[in-house]
């Protein structure tokens, strides 16, 4: 007893710095490709460079301006709506599918599992190009279906529906991925828990509600956080669809598109950096709230 605790302590002391030998390489690259650009973005955001007249230190002006910028808020609101609608839908479908797979009541569950997961392997570029073709109101699949008698689908690329159209692409891409995360978590629930429920005479829904869901809470929270981050960073899909829907998707459709267009079309690198920093902070806050919500539920139990 004394011996083990002693070796434990020396090991701990030896390991006091050795941990950095393992973490170090990651952190060096991390500092170079992620931390340094963040600091550089902060630095940039304090200046204003003009096409005519050069560069000047402006303090927090860019931040003040961004917070009063109607375009920024419109884009922010749009991804917030996207987040509130698309993320729950996607996660619910994924959860349902995972529970269905886990229930072992499916025919051909292996095939179903891999089919639903496959879209995750499709690059966002390819997925968007593909759905773009499908969405075509004249010659695309939507057009084909509309030409059938009695079918009148909404036009996916119109201003009213384009957000839903993008939501559909994102859902398509990630529903299988989230399903697998949940499914994997369900698989490792200790069998004893089910046996106990069995003895209690709990029905299927009770088992789902009071055993399965609480048991995979961690996976749910992680999936939710990554989905939140993904929604706030929405870029590839709307940016590529913009060719097909030039008016419905504006240059400030999402905060990320706004930041991108500010720098690359408008040469407003400094202002763009400020927008990026604000979005980063906002994302962290929302992700934190999601995590907090997840832990509170646990505390309540």
């Amino acid at each position, binding site marked *: 007893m004394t011996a083990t605790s002693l070796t434990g302590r020396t090991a701990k002391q030896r390991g006091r710095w050795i941990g950095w030998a393992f973490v170090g390489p990651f952190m060096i690259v991390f500092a170079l490709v*992620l931390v340094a650009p963040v600091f550089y973005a902060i630095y940039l955001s304090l200046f204003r460079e003009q096409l005519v007249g050069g560069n000047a230190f402006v303090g927090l002006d860019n931040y003040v301006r961004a917070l009063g910028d109607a375009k920024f808020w419109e884009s922010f609101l749009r991804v917030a709506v996207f987040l509130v609608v698309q993320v729950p839908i996607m996660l619910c479908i994924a959860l349902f599918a995972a529970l269905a797979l886990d229930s072992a009541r499916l025919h051909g569950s292996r095939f179903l599992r891999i089919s639903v997961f*496959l879209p995750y392997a499709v690059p966002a570029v390819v997925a968007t190009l593909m759905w773009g073709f499908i969405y075509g109101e004249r010659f695309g699949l939507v057009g084909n279906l509309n030409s059938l008698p009695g079918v009148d689908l909404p036009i996916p690329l119109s201003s009213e529906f384009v957000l839903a159209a993008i939501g559909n692409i994102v859902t398509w891409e990630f529903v299988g991925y989230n399903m697998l995360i949940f499914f*994997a978590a369900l698989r490792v629930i200790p069998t004893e828990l089910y046996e106990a429920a069995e003895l209690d005479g709990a029905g299927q829904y009770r088992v789902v509600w009071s055993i399965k869901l609480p048991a995979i809470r961690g996976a749910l929270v992680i999936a939710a956080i990554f989905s939140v981050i993904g929604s706030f960073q929405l870029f590839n899909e709307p940016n590529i669809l913009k060719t097909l829907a030039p008016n419905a998707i504006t240059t400030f459709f999402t905060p990320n598109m706004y930041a991108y267009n500010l720098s690359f079309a408008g040469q407003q690198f400094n202002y763009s950096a400020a927008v990026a920093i604000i979005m980063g902070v906002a994302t962290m806050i929302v992700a934190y709230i999601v995590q907090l919500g997840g832990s509170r539920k646990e505390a309540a139990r």
Partner: protein
Amino acid sequence: MSALRFAKTTSGLRPRRSILLTVIMGLLAIYALLPLFWLFVNSTKTQAALFSTFGLWFGGEFALFDNIVQTLTYDDGEFVRWLGNTLLYVVVGAGGATALATLAGYGLAKFDFPGRRAVFAVVLGAVAVPGTALAVPTFLMFSQLGLTNTPWAIILPSLISPFGLYLIWVYAVDSVPTELLEAARIDGAGEFRTFFTISSRLLAPGFVTVLLFAIVATWNNYFLPLIMLSDPAWYPLTVGLNQWNAQATGVGAQPIYNLVITGSLLTIIPIVVAFLFLQRYWQSGLSAGSVKQ
């Protein structure tokens, strides 16, 4: 251990198969597969047939092989070049990312060292900053270092996989028993020796899982190469395909939609195959990774 559990059906004491549930899941599978079916169907069409036939069924002459040949040879075979680039980025980028994440995740799980919690906080915080918007500062920095328009501009950022770090961390906590490490220490083995001879084997399923997700991330990487590269000779497939698609614009427009579609099909095949073959590994890796949060 988890693999064993995996083989069991948990609530499968009385598995009565449900038609209704199967039908609902079937619909979901159709939703997932339909666009891929569309992609396959349309990669069998000529440019002309693409414009004139029903999207969800074969039409015109069966031009799949012709399209594939055209895709591979168009503009001196630039598609093949892009495929090679993508492979390079995947091997070095995803391989490196997995190695770094494994080392670091293991380090976080098994050593208590000063700044441990800070490391994780910083990593998670940085994930939240929109990568797209950091593109400009990153681009400017890299161009000062002379890295833009070289493979390094793609590879270096790919080396960081925060999700991979997280997964290995969680995985290592459970799958590498601390007692085992203690025993190795008593035997006088160095930490790295222990890692490479003992721990790495135990970490294998987690490693494969992270590797696969890193492969997908690098294979699908689009935005960064778009910014960093101006020479198509270094493009990965995603950027190249988008350039082909954009080629239909303006004076001198040359739409090659059939090649865009066939190219898309060819782009996703390797990654799908990789996933199918390595299914067993990554699924058990995922299971273990989600034990706790």
